[in-house]
């Protein structure tokens, strides 16, 4: 059992994560971004087709390959590397401070607080009829499950297999799949939390929803 409130407070103290960009391969570095405090963007576009801000070029055998910012944020600090210096693969180049978005904070907390049940193999999943009816009539957080319960049906090529739940007892807090779409192996299907924790998590989530200020 974890204290979600304390976790949130801890995140609030440092509402960002620091990403270290390192050289993907060896080569001579030519920085495109030269000062700290510069704002950079991550990949964007409907298909992630637009790369992030160009941070540097890494020249190897006459081939200047770009190094792009992986996420949105600001350049925090440069490691002690001179422009034009030869670097080995894996050499840290600079740090980017990425401020967490609401969704990211919620994901961190839920991931820690919930027990995630993962897809044992690729296929389409849906709840067994008892649970399905219960969810439809009484809402998601009304379903109590315990270890060994029949919980899901895996449907693949017209073959249907019943999946049993394994993990701590509790209620289904959230689901991550859509019964129309195929789910990859090991993708989370739903998250379970102990009954007494539900209210706790709910307050924290509400608090994030209403109170979290996303910083640029």
């Amino acid at each position, binding site marked *: 059992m974890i204290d979600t409130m304390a976790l949130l407070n801890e995140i609030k103290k440092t509402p960002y994560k620091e990403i270290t960009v390192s050289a993907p391969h060896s080569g001579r570095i030519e920085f495109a971004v030269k000062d700290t405090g510069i704002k950079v963007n991550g990949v964007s576009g*409907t*298909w992630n*087709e637009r790369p992030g801000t160009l941070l540097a070029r890494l020249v*190897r*055998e*006459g*081939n200047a*390959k770009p190094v792009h910012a992986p996420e949105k944020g600001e350049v925090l600090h440069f490691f002690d590397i001179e422009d034009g210096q030869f670097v080995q693969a894996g050499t840290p180049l600079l740090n980017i401070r990425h401020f967490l978005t609401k969704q990211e904070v919620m994901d961190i907390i839920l991931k820690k607080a919930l027990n995630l049940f993962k897809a044992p193999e690729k296929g389409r999943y849906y709840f067994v009829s008892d649970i399905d009816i219960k969810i439809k009539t009484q809402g998601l957080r009304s379903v109590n499950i315990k270890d060994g319960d029949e919980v899901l049906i895996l449907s693949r090529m017209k073959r249907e297999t019943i999946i049993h739940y394994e993990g701590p007892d509790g209620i289904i807090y959230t689901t991550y799949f859509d019964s129309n779409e195929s789910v990859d192996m090991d993708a989370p299907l739903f998250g379970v939390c102990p009954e007494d924790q539900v209210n706790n998590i709910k307050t924290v989530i509400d608090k994030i929803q209403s109170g979290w200020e996303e910083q640029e």
Partner: protein
Amino acid sequence: MIHCKDLKNPQTEASLRILIFNATHKNMTDIDKQIQDLKERLQYIQDIFGNRENANVSLLGSKLNDFVHALPSLGPAQIKRQLGSLSDLFTFLENKLEKELTPMDRVRIVRHPQRVCLKDILENVYDNYTEIGGQGEYSIDPSMIIARAYITRNVGKKIYKQPVMVIGQEKGHGQEFRNGGSVKPWGNAKALEYMKVAVTENIPIHTYIFTPGSYPVEDYPGAAQQIARNIYAMAGINVPVVAVISEGGSGGAEAIGLADTRIMLSHGYYSVISPEGAAAIEGRAKSGSRISPELVESCARQLRITAQDNLKMGYIDRVLQEPSLGARPEHFDFFKKLRQEVILATDEIILSVRGIKLFRAIALRKLNNPNIYVRWGLSQKSGERLLWRRYQKYRALSRWAYKDSTPAWQKYKIAVSEAAWSVYSFLRYEFFGRHQRAITHLAEDVQGEVHALFGRVMHKTSKLLRKLPGVKKEKEEVCQLTTLSTWEEGMSWDEHCRYISPQANQDRTLPCPNANKFNCLDLWAPDLFGDFAGVCSHCGHHFPMEYEWYLFNVFDPRSIREFSPRLESLNPLDFEGLEHKLDQAKKQTGHKSGCMTFEADIKGIRVVVAVLLARFRGGSVGAAEGEKFSRAVEQARRKHMPFLAYVHGTAGIRIQEGTNGLIQMPRCTLSVRRYLEAGGLYLVLYDTNSYAGPVASFLGCSPYQFAIRSANIGFAGPAVIRETTGLDIPPDYHNAFMALSRGHIQGIWDRREIRNNLHHALMTMGGEFLYYR
């Protein structure tokens, strides 16, 4: 009715007062209506002239304003008089303004919501019609209207009903679902379907072109491919086709525009690209940035898009004069004129190919509105004559827009050799060939019969024979299994590797664009462009190679014979800056146009090849390129050879040549159709990027289209799609594999295998004679 004696009656008196009031009121509403009319006329003029300052327009505005202000103080007679003079002034100045119209004003007229549209024409030009293939928004594509209509004609004492198929784009009467007359591929497919119906029913087709361009989506049947299919089919439709052009925007117009007679409305435009599009390309504007109106205006002027310009260049047959400042639905006289014009055009086409026509043809030509009857059906033979006339008509177009600097003696030599080839082909394939084929078929049949009769007996006998001692068994199998294979003859390796790409002469590595997805390693340029033929050794991505690589590696060594190399691209419209760009391209490539045509061998099979060169102005097609392509097709037809179009890259029609470029779409397609119908084998091979006009006509109409891996094929590039449709398209939208899965092309080939694949294709599709019939 009120009698005088009733006047004393107070009740009657009251009703009389009401009557007088009504009369004045009616008068008032009449005046209001006239003022409203004038206001609308003024608004229309202001719309047309855009933001330009014009003394006449402001004069009209102030006069009308003065009158409206003075209205309460004027008596009825004064009002009537002033209204009359104001209306006269409007008419006078409208006529005066008409002379000041710039090409861009005409574009605004054509796009104005008050412009006549197809539904108005159906109502007013035809006597009755039934819309088919959709009602209003419940249609597969509401921007394409198809109707079966008829025209009644009274000749002598008889009444004739003459049926026609009317096809055209619709912009109005439900603007919200008409998509501005921008037809989707399935709309064009519908048009094609009903053109075929018209052929079955043997009735003429009248098409009305009201489109700014086609909707550039690739979903099946695909914008480009469907237009190509339409043009190809129209090249062989043996009923008269009359096209009326109001807004002829590029490929969308060509999709229904290949007609025997093209009538253009005097205020319409017919252009390869919208003036805004041309300005965006000329100004190299990035998406989102605004283009200056002056540049748009100058492009509209330079592209020569008006009716008079097109008439002068020969791309339309006649101009139908509209009322001043353009036809609107209330101009009934205009519809009457249009009706006469389309009837006359159809009659003329019919009479020009029919056997018994003498007096009527003369009457048609001499009299303006003759009261004669021409039946609108054609016999088989007349239909063939019609097709031949259509082919000749388009073949003769745009001859002045390129330069042929071949010396006279050489031209003469070519003409003689062409004639000799025609005679030889006739003797070899038509005369001798037909008899030979008949004999071969007979021999085959006899052989088959004999085989069926004696096969069993022979089989048994040979079995017996083989059992006899001393009879040798077949040695071939043993030989094949025990000896080493040898190189094919004529395939010595160094003969094929003489071409070294300039890209290979750099000491550096290159990243593969798919490196993120497949973790491809960097490739060293001399390896990549030398030994690997520009193919990533890890994921198979094809880097662009120069067209020379193909000349050396696909065709047999020393087999290439180029023809008509002196045909030269010009700047027929004197478009600003094109001269210089063309000179640069000519210097850079050593070619005089963007199309290279030659005969060559592929493993001993002689083919005619046309290459569109990506490096010459992006492989864009203008009058010279179109002419060379057509000549190549004709060469293939004359010599009974398979024809290969290798598209090293094409950006579309060369916009700076305006309609001279656009007309190459139907022009070359007609040649291709003639070749295919004579039994030719036409292969298209796309490389790098192929877009727009050529794909939507003479390339897209081939039944066998292949692409080299990593090629992009489509109608409009991503930026244009985003701008015109607002759709965000995925990065691999035009990828060859996407084109393959949409059914636009028939296969994707590896660059290193092209020689083998082409040979294989020629052998399998062309068969024994490489030429079907």
